Every structure is written in C-alpha cells, then in structure tokens.
C-alpha cells in the first residue's frame, strides 16, 4: 500500500518537471544542433561547418575569443586568489564575503554603463591620468577596457569558490608543513595552493565560459573590436538572420564549454549562479 502510494506520488511530482526537461532542456539543444545543418534558405547542408572551418575570419575570431577569455580569467584569478586568501584571515569573513558578492546583485548592464562614463574622453579615469601627468588616453572601446570591465564583473564569481576551498582547508596541514620546516612560500606552493586547486578550477569554470559569450560588453565597452563567439552568435541570430551559421558557432561554443568542463574536472559543484546571487 505504502509503496503504491509512493509511486503515484512520484508520477504526480514528475509530470511538470519532466515536461520542462523535455521541452526546455533537451528540445532546444537538439533544435540548435539541427538548425546548424540548414542554410539561410532553409535547405539541408553541411556548408555552415565548411564555411566555419575554411574561413580564416571565423577561425581567427575563435582563437581571439578564447585568448581574450583566457586573459580575463587569468586577470580574475590573479586578483581573486589574494582577495579570497586575505578574506579568509579576517575576523568577520562572512560579512566581507557578502560585501564582495553584493555587486553581483546590481544589473550587469548598469555596471557596464557606469564604465562608459568612467572611461569616456573626459571621464574620471582620464581626469586621473591627466592629474598624474600621463595625459588623457583613449580608454573606451579598447581591448584593455573590455578585459578590465569583464574582469571587474567576474571577480565575485572567482572569489567565492576560492574562498570556500580556503575555508575548508584544515589548519593542521599548514601547521604540519610549518613544523616540518617549510618556508612560507613552500607551504603556499606545496600545500595551500594544491589543496585549494578545486576552488580555482570551479572559479575558472564559472568565469571562462561566460567570458566567451559576453556580447553586450564587446558592444558597449569593447567598441566591437573584440568579436567573441557570443557576439558572432548574437549577430547571426538577430542582425543577419543567418540562424544556421549562428547555430554552427553555437555548437562550437558548446564544444568549447564541454572541453573547459572536462579540463577543470567535470561535474564540480557549479558556483557561478547558485551561491553568488
């Protein structure tokens, strides 16, 4: 009786959820892959893949996109690791962490818009450069500003997983390493860093993939100089209406995502969205 009751309960629970998985998880991905085999006139073709793999522009764009995502991720790790490390040592770490996470609650577009003002010709950044004697520079619409703003936006998503890894680290390991005569640097490079590597990997996952698809920043801050995979997809879907080619680039982006996930350890808890908002 009870088992039967459980079973009926199960089906009732599952109907809407399974429908969601079928309609909004599986169907869209399959449709995207399916669409990548059609040209702009709706005929079945492999031409999109041929175009992509033989066109210098697209291959170069992919390399560029990956390179910029790499630079953004690198900058984010270099800034976030010390931040997480120092946070872990403060007294009210949880409160400070909350303050680091708070900016992620502000709409992304508003933060990008703020940088339009900060980096503009007469903006505060240029006023500062003039003040220290360097003189105003073109800041907005440069590759530098794109990387800077992207790193700015991603920092909290990197700090959080690294902080979690650091706070889970048992102090006894550090004490043991000190007792055995390791210097501070040795303790860090041989004990602390390897043990917190899963946190860094989770952070890389959370930062690298979105960095490949930040099309709004390439437009607002990068001045369309950096074209990422995301920018190309948006362009093909909403401007040139070449959905087939857009889907092909989408498939490439999915493959890039799978490679990153695989390199950084597959199904690690994903920190980007769940814990940070």
């Amino acid at each position, binding site marked *: 009786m009870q088992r039967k009751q459980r079973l009926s309960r199960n089906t009732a629970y599952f109907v809407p959820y399974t429908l969601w998985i079928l309609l909004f998880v599986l169907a*869209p991905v399959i449709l995207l892959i399916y669409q990548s085999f059609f040209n702009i006139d709706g005929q079945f073709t492999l031409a999109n893949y041929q175009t992509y793999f033989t066109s210098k522009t697209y291959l170069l764009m992919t390399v560029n996109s990956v390179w910029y995502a790499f630079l953004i991720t690198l900058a984010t790790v270099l800034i976030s690791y010390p*931040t997480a490390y120092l*946070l872990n040592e403060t007294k009210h770490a949880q409160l400070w962490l909350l303050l680091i996470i708070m900016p992620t609650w*502000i709409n*992304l577009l508003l933060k990008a818009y703020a940088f339009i*003002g900060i980096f503009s010709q007469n903006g505060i950044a240029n006023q500062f450069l003039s003040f220290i004697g360097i003189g105003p520079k073109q800041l907005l619409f440069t590759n530098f500003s794109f990387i800077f703003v992207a790193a700015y936006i991603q920092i*909290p998503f990197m700090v959080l997983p690294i902080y979690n890894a650091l706070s889970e680290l048992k102090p006894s390991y550090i004490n043991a390493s000190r007792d055995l005569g390791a210097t501070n640097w040795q303790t860090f490079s041989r004990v602390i860093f390897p043990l917190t590597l899963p946190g860094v990997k989770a952070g890389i996952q959370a930062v690298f993939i979105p960095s490949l698809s930040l099309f709004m920043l390439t437009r607002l801050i990068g001045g369309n100089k950096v074209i990422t995979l995301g920018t190309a*997809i948006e362009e093909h879907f909403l401007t040139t209406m070449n959905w087939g080619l857009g889907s092909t680039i989408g498939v490439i982006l*999915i493959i890039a995502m799978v490679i990153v996930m695989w390199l950084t350890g597959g199904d690690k808890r994903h920190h980007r969205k769940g814990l940070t908002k």
Partner: protein
Amino acid sequence: MKHLTFKWRHLYLWLIFIVLYAPIIFLVVYSFSAGTTMTNFHGFTWAHYQALFADSRLIAIFLDTLLIALLSAILATTIGTLGALGINNTTRPVTRSTLLALNNILMVSPDVIIGASFLIFFTALKIPLGFGSVLLSHVAFSIPIVVLMVLPKIQEMGTSLLDAAADLGANNWQLLSQVIVPYIMPGIFSGFFMALTYSLDDFAVTFFVTGNGFTTLSVEIYSRARQGINLEINALSGLMLLLALVLVIGYYFINQYGRRHRRLPRRRRG
C-alpha cells in the same frame, strides 16, 4: 614587521572593495548631478528622478519586468519543488544522476546559447515572441536553481517523518501540505528569491526571445546605453540599487528565519 604586513593586507582588501563599489557609487552620485554627462558634478538636483517618474513608458517597462519576475519565480518554484521531490523519490541511482545532470545543463550553459536555442524553439512551435516567450524562458532557466535549493532540504528531512505520517493515516495531499512543504519551506523561499533575482537580472536570454513589442529593464538599459550617456539611466540605477538592497536584506532575513526554525525542533528534542 608583523604590524606592517598586517596593514598591507588590509590595504589590498580595501582596494578591492573600492574598485568593486566605485562604479556603482559613481552611477548613483551622478544621478543627482544637474549636468547632462558623467564628467563633472554640476550641483544637486532631483530632476533625473523626476524625469524618470514622468516617463510612463519606462514605468510600464519596470512593471512588466516585475510582473515577469514574480510570475516566473512562482511558476519556477512550483515546478522546481515538485521536481526536487520527484528526484528525491527516485530509487535507481542512474535515474537520479541523469536527472541531476539534465537539471544542470541550463545552469552551466552560456546565456547566448540558451537565448539562441529558445529562439529557435519558440519559432519552431510558432509561439509569438513577447511577454509569453520571455515568461516561459525565465521560468525555464530558473527551475534548476530552485531544484538545487530545495533538494538539500528534502534530503535533510529523511524518510522517517514521512513514514510516521503515512502510518498515522495521512493521505498524499496531507503528507505534502502538512509535513513536507512546511519542513522544506526555507529551501522553497531561497529558491523563490533566487528565481526572482535571476529574472530581474537577466539580459542575454531576454534579448534573444523578446521580439519587437516587449522589453524588460535590462534590454531597455542596453539600448539606451548604446546611444550614450543619459542621466535618467543613472537615476534608474539608483532605484535598482535600492531594490537590490531590499532583496538582499529580505533574503538575509529569510535565511535567518530558516535557521531559527530549524533549531527549534532540535532544541525541543534535546
């Protein structure tokens, strides 16, 4: 020596905080500037806020954005909670891990992919782009987070409580409404708030599925920001900062409430 290193550490943290908050403060400060650009402060004024409240189109967009957020959060929380209950009831580990993997697909996918594939999906099904398509998308990408917030609460509950209730003659509906839902309520609330903030925050997915007649705040800010600086956007950011603060505080109190609620039965038992 030790004192010195101590100071350097704090300097670094302070620098990070200043960098993180400077742009936001910058936006809000200029929302009160009498000028028209974000370069020099021209004296205090409420004019941009007045303009904002007089802009009926923007207010309509704001209300639409809130409506989408509330509706999608309610729907996503319902479906996600049922899904979490279903996942918890699976007996075979393979089914369970498959479901969790499928659940995570939308969590890890780049927004552009979600947006593009939903656009193809809605077009294939001939669902018109606009309020409906945006709402469906927001429900869809919020469900996995609800599942991930609710599932740990259900697991914490264990089976003995359910078995006891069933032995005492509770039917399915009573089990759900009298035992399960009250117990997992903190998880449901967290899921609801997450869904709400996802929806309010989303730009990329909405941008793909919104069509011509309908916009949300993010999409509107994007199109205005592309035209250059307009201090009305600064005023808007001031208001959205306020909204974000309210949400953070609300979320904090719900978490506190959840913790207190969890502690009570334990204390009674002890």
